[in-house]
Every structure is written in structure tokens, then in C-alpha cells.
């Protein structure tokens, strides 16, 4: 799709509102318990009820009985709905958000992805004391960005109980994105179990929720397809490691009902459009544990923003959205027909679904679900099979790099080669072109800003998704529209390993749970540093830094995108540049709720 067709003179907001109002007349029905922003007509002036417009917003947090997927449930509600209302702020405002806790336990709200003062970040124990039962806490901060974000509780496991909602910030100036209508699509995973029971089940029995394990039938199928020797070797490796190659999601559709704007697939939430309109879909993954693959069969989606920040348009058929990530996509349905918005859980154990249609009550075909995939060599990379130990690799790269200052670049190949000598028998093709690409080294001996790390797999979408089948968004595609303000090269590198013990369900950074670490991660105020994340586990981890952007070094040079949450695939090594301009203490953690609670959490202190 030509870039100019999207990034051009946008309609004024007034025009958009007028159009929406005209369309929305007479369809105020069936609001009920549905969040008002989940109104099928999308954003219109008529249905402002339930959308909390800034700058001053009051939110009441309660535990209420509401039906979810037609069943009695006890979610946490925000102003009477779960998920909560759409909070709509405007860039340049001074937001005043009053949160009243009507629960019988402490609560909090974290404004995910927002750059704000540390005491307004909403993490109990890091930003503030939390909000005690019966108390009101007033968040006040200047709104200095725009785009698609979300908010959620940072207390205990309240997020799993539906304590989350979308947060949209309208731009102060005209956005470089033109559209006629917008819909918010908030994905969540609901369980009728108590979140603490879910956690206990994960802790006490490995694979508790996995009903897609390999069976004897899979073994024979593999023997038929790949021969006995190869199958036996592969299964032998996994068995020797005492791991399951089907461990794609810890908590699955066996307990989760996947919701889109609070609606189950059966309830089929409707997003309406008029044929010929350009519709902006603001997709937010507000799940506790679930990655989704999102597609709308019959429609090309053009990705125009990631984690609230604009990116150069990427036309795709499908995109994977990690927990806590957001993507804005544009679609232009030309025909007067219904389209299924299909968000399939990464482990294929279920899906969320809505319908994009010109009239309510329509539906389109639901795509066939894919089979769960088996993790392969790339996930094993982290587990020391045949000398493929990533911790060695990281060490090698690091020491290798730091010795590079003043060296002729042509010797790079030599270094790689010697480094590789203890990696005999490894499948080089999975190494993300470590030896093949010439790394570009700056004067300080570090990789140049924006260069992809050896060991990154930005050109791959991940497990169980076939790039030959359709065009799938990968991190490599994300390209900022203009360079971000801080153009400095990184002054230093900080390396963190993502670690875990699946058997015990212990998750950690550098092998230490939060309760075992002796101090915060220290950033020097105003320094420019490179954060390198090395995933030594076999699971994806969406890593979220509070308070500061992470500029994902996906090889796009000065146009690298910036994100608040980075998906790190198994065995992968990724890096981000950070400008440590936000003095104070900030949370830094895996955004899989139960991983965070199991210890994958750190505090970053900027001083």
C-alpha cells in the first residue's frame, strides 16, 4: 500500500465526529453491561456514555457479579464494567484521574506505556503505597504523548479478574494517520477459577492446563513424516531435557475464555462500518497470559502504530500481539459484507472473535483453528544442547565486542569464527545470521545504535505461524516515521538473562527471583544505554519497562521503533536503547502475570 494514501491530510476530528454521529443514530440499544467504548459504532459523539473523557476522570473499583460468556462471574469492575471504561485523554492536558477503591483489599492502576512522574506510575511498593480499601488516590500528570495504550491493576492478581481497560490519547496536532472511524479491540483472557488457584496449579503440577501435549500418536505421525531416526533424536533431546516441546502457553483455553471487548466468541461483539470507510482498529492485548495471532480474513491490515507510537505503514494479513503490546491497524472494507476479526491464542487452544460488519447481528465464517506447533531447535538453543549454550554465546559476543575497539572491521569475521569454534554441531541457520552479517561496531567498541544483535530473530514472527501462508508482521518491519530525539550511541551495555525453572514454575532475571535480588538495576540519570535481553527459557516473555521507552534495535538504524513491551522469543537475544531521563524507581518485569508473580520482576532505579 502506498504510504501517501495513509499519511496525508487527515479529516479533522470534527468531521469524524459528525460522520459518526450521523451513523450512530438510533442504535443506542443493548448497552447493558458492555463497556460503552465497545459500542458497535465505534467512536461517535452520540455514545459518549461510558467513555470517560479527560482531563478529569473518576473511577470506582468494585467486585461485582456480572455474567461473562453468559455465566455468573465475579470480576473486578471499573465504573460498573469489566473490562473498564475507555479513558480518553488529549495530549497536552494535565490529567487528573481519581481512583476510588471499593474492594476489600488494596488496589492500584498502572497507566501502561505512559511517560509520567514515578509517583504516578501506580505500582504498589515501587511508585506508591497502593490504594487502601475505601480510599481515593488522585493521579495527576501531564499527558505528553498520544496513541493507543491501556491501564490495569498492578496489585496481586487483580488483572486476571478483569481490572483493565483501554486508554486512548488523542494527538495535540494532526496525526499522520487518516481514518473515518475507529474501534478499540481489547483482548483479554478470563477464567472462572480463582487466579490464586491458577497460580497454585501452575506451581504444583507442570503442564496442568496443557491438554495438547504430545502423545504416542504424535510420535508415530512424526516417524511417518520424518523417519524414525530423526524423530527419535528430536524426541530424545526433549525427553532428556525433561521439557515439553508443546509448552507454548502455561495457561490455556482449557480454563480461559478469550474475550474481545469483554465478549466471548459466542457473544460475537460487532464492530460496525460503512462500506468504503477507512477504519482504524486499536488492538490492545490486555491478557494476563495469552499471546494472540490476529487476522481478518478478506481484509488487508495496515499496521500504523506499535505500542502507541506511529510506524511506517506495513500491510499485513496477520500479526502476533504479545501480552501488553498494542498495535493500530487500518482496514478498508469495500464490500457490504461481514468480516471475522479472529484472534487465535498462540497455543491454538482457543480464540477470541468479533465481527466487523455493516449491520448488527451479522457474522462471517470463523477460520479453522490451526494445530499447536512443537517447539524446535531454536527454543533449545538456551538449554545447552550440543554446546549451544546461550550464556556462553553471550559471554563470547560481549568479550569479543569489547576487544574490538580500534580493530579493523575486516577482522570481525575472524572473531566470529573463533567464537564459533566451541559450537560445533549447532544448527547455524537458527542463529539469526550471527556469523553471516557483518556487525557494525562504533568507536566505543559497541555495536552501532539500531543494529540488530547477533542471535536476534526479528525477521521471524515466532512459533506456530507460517510466513509462507500469509504476510505476517515481524519486528523487523517496524520502522519509526522519524528518528527519536536522542541520537546518541549507547554509552554502555547492560545484559540480562531471562531465566526460569519450568518444573518449579520459578521465573527470574539472571537466575534470581525478585525476592532474592539484593538491589535495583541502576541506570545513571540521562545516560544512553543498551539493554540486552537474552532469553534462556523456552517460553516467550513480553518484557515491560515502566517510565521510559525502549527503542527496539531491530536493524532499522536511526528509524528503530520504540516500545514499552518487547516480546523476546525462546533462545533469542534482543536489545533496546534507553535514554534514562526519568529519575526515580520503576518496575521492570515480564508481563505474563504469573511469571511476574513467580519472581520475574526487578526495580530499575534512575539516579
Amino acid at each position: 500500500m502506498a504510504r501517501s494514501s495513509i499519511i496525508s491530510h487527515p479529516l479533522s476530528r470534527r468531521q469524524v465526529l459528525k460522520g459518526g454521529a450521523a451513523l450512530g443514530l438510533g442504535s443506542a440499544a443493548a448497552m447493558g453491561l458492555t463497556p460503552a467504548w465497545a459500542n458497535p459504532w465505534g467512536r461517535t459523539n452520540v455514545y459518549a456514555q461510558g467513555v470517560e473523557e479527560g482531563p478529569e476522570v473518576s473511577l470506582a473499583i468494585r467486585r461485582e457479579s456480572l455474567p461473562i460468556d453468559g455465566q455468573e462471574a465475579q470480576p473486578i469492575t471499573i465504573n460498573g464494567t469489566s473490562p473498564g471504561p475507555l479513558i480518553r485523554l488529549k495530549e497536552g492536558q494535565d490529567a487528573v484521574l481519581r481512583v476510588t477503591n471499593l474492594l476489600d483489599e488494596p488496589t492500584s492502576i498502572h497507566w501502561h506505556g505512559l511517560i509520567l512522574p514515578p509517583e504516578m506510575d501506580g505500582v504498589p511498593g515501587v511508585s506508591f503505597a497502593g490504594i487502601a480499601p475505601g480510599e481515593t488516590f488522585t493521579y495527576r500528570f501531564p499527558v505528553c504523548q498520544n496513541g493507543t495504550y491501556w491501564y490495569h491493576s498492578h496489585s496481586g492478581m487483580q488483572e486476571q479478574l478483569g481490572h483493565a481497560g483501554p486508554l486512548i490519547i488523542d494527538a495535540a496536532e494532526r496525526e499522520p494517520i487518516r481514518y473515518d472511524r475507529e474501534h478499540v479491540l481489547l483482548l483479554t483472557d478470563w477464567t472462572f477459577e480463582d487466579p490464586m488457584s491458577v497460580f497454585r496449579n501452575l506451581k504444583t503440577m507442570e503442564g496442568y492446563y496443557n491438554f495438547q501435549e504430545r502423545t504416542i500418536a504424535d510420535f508415530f505421525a512424526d516417524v511417518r513424516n520424518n523417519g524414525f531416526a530423526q524423530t527419535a533424536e528430536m524426541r530424545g533431546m526433549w525427553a532428556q531435557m525433561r521439557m515439553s516441546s508443546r509448552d507454548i502457553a502455561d495457561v490455556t483455553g482449557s480454563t480461559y475464555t478469550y474475550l474481545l471487548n469483554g465478549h466471548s466468541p459466542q457473544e460475537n461483539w460487532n464492530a460496525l462500518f460503512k462500506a468504503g470507510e477507512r477504519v482504524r482498529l486499536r488492538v490492545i492485548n490486555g491478557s494476563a497470559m495469552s499471546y494472540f495471532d490476529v487476522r481478518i480474513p478478506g481484509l488487508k491490515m495496515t499496521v500504523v502504530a506499535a505500542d502507541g507510537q506511529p510506524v511506517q505503514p506495513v500491510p499485513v494479513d496477520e500479526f502476533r500481539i504479545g501480552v501488553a503490546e498494542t498495535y493500530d491497524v487500518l482496514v478498508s472494507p469495500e464490500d457490504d459484507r461481514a468480516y471475522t476479526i479472529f484472534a487465535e491464542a498462540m497455543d491454538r487452544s482457543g480464540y477470541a472473535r468479533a465481527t466487523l460488519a455493516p449491520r448488527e447481528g451479522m457474522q462471517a465464517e470463523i477460520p479453522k483453528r490451526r494445530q499447536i506447533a512443537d517447539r524446535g531447535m531454536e527454543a533449545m538453543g538456551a538449554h545447552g544442547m550440543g554446546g549451544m549454550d546461550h550464556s556462553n554465546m553471550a559471554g563470547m559476543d560481549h568479550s569479543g565486542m569489547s576487544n574490538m575497539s580500534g580493530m579493523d572491521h575486516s577482522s570481525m569475521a575472524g572473531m566470529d569464527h573463533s567464537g564459533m569454534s566451541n559450537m560445533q554441531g549447532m544448527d547455524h541457520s537458527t542463529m539469526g545470521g550471527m556469523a553471516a552479517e557483518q556487525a557494525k561496531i562504533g568507536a566505543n567498541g559497541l555495536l552501532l545504535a539500531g543494529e540488530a544483535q547477533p542471535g536476534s530473530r526479528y525477521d521471524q514472527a515466532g512459533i506456530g505461524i507460517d510466513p509462507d501462508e500469509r504476510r505476517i508482521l515481524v519486528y523487523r518491519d517496524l520502522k519509526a516515521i522519524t528518528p527519536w530525539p536522542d541520537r546518541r550511541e549507547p554509552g554502555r551495555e547492560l545484559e540480562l538473562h531471562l531465566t526460569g525453572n519450568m518444573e518449579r514454575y520459578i521465573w527470574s532475571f539472571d537466575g534470581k527471583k525478585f525476592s532474592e535480588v539484593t538491589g535495583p538495576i541502576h541506570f545513571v540519570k540521562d545516560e544512553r544505554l543498551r539493554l540486552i535481553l537474552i532469553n534462556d527459557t523456552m517460553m516467550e516473555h513480553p518484557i515491560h519497562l515502566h517510565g521510559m521507552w525502549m527503542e527496539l534495535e531491530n536493524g532499522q538504524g536511526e528509524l528503530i521503533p520504540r516500545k514499552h513491551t518487547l516480546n523476546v522469543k525462546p533462545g533469542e537475544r534482543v536489545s533496546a536503547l534507553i535514554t534514562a531521563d526519568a529519575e526515580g524507581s520503576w518496575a521492570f518485569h515480564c508481563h505474563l502475570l504469573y511469571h511476574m508473580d513467580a519472581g520475574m520482576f526487578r526495580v530499575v532505579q534512575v539516579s
Partner: protein
Amino acid sequence: MKIKRYLTLASAALGMAAATTAQAEDGYAAPDSWPAPTEEHNMGMALFDRLEYSVPDKGPEAVVWDFQGWYGGDINRIYLKSEGENVQGDGEDAEFESLELLYSRLVADFWELQGGIGYQGGVFSDDHAERTYGVVGLQGVMPYGIETDVALQVSEDGDVAASFEGEYDLRLTQRLYLQPRTEIAVAASKVEEFGVGEGLNSVRVGMRLGYEVTRRFAPYVGAYWVKEYGDTADLSRAGGNNTEDTGVVAGVRLML
């Protein structure tokens, strides 16, 4: 009354476990009144790996249990383990082959080192010979997914014995599993009262076919073969018992 002694010990040990899971120093500037951003949770689990009715070919029928429960954190835990049986129609009380209270510490990703005290004897009465012993063991998962429990026992009289248990779950479908299982017992010295001979005592091999109605409830059927060796077999023969037997079982695996 022995039971009471164990309960006292158990509660003391649980207190110990709770104390060891306190939060470590977070080390960043946060007022003391603030809560920790993430909480550590102590947990507990109770599992009847086998709760079954056994019908041997030659010997008497029996209700057999194999139980373990634990409470604690990720690293330190207190275990209560018990195996035993109630032989049907012998007019005697059920017997603990073992009732153990153990402190357990995670020493490697898949391995827990365990140590504590054990009791062998009648459950409610003095129908059976009794003894107490100290036990040190290693419980975990071997490569290829074999669940293993090896233990060394030293009795109050200084008699030394060791045991090995291994089992493996082979998944036939998502809910149907086949579980081969083996138990091997050896002893360093003869203890006539308990029918224990020197050297290899017995080998037991079994196979169970279970169906997980839920993850917590799996009824199963199975069969086993058991054989006694050396002194142990001689002791059995002297007592008029069989030294080799096969049998079928039906039971449940139950997680509470």
C-alpha cells in the same frame, strides 16, 4: 501416641519453613510501610499417587496407599510421605510401611534433597512391629522424565536400608496415560522382625493405565509383579508367605 509426637514435630517444622521464605532485602528506596511489589506465596499440595485395592494371585487382598504432601516455598519445603497397606481380613490394623516427615531443599532444577525422620508400624494400634528411623533422600525427575525417589534409611537400632522408586508417564491420549513403575529395596543387615534380609530384598514392577477425568482425579487399573530375594525370601518362606506374586489393582490418583 507416636502419631502425636510426629504432629508436634510437624508443626515445629512448618514454622521453620514459613520463617525461611521471608522477603529478601529489595535494596531500593521505598518506605518500609509500602508493600512488596510482588508477593511470595507459600503453597501446599497433597497427592495420593496411588490409592488402590490390590488383588494378588496368591497373597491376601489389601488396600494400599502411596501419599505425599508438601508445604512451603520454591526452595524449602516440608514433606509428609507415607506408604502403607491394610491387609483385608487379617483382623489387624492398617500398617505404615513408612510415614516420613522430611525437610526438603531444591538443590538443582529437577532435584530435591530431603532428610527427616520416619516411622514404620501400626497406624492406630500395636498390631504391627514398630520402629523409627532417620532418612535421607533425593527426589526429582531424571533425564527422559523418569520420576525418581531414592532414599537411605537408618533405623533406631542402626540398621541400614535403601530404596529406589521410579515411574514414568507415557501419554496415550491427552487424558489416558500408561505408567510403568518400579520399586527396589535393599538392606545392609538382616532385621528379622520386619522380614528384612541382607542384600537385595525385593523388586516390584507394575504398570498402570489411568484416565485423567481432571488433572486432580484419575482412576486407574493396573497389574504388578513382585519378587523377594535372598534372606528376605528365606524369611518369607519361613513365615509361610509367598516370595513371588503377581496381582491386579484398581484405584485412583487423587490430588487435593
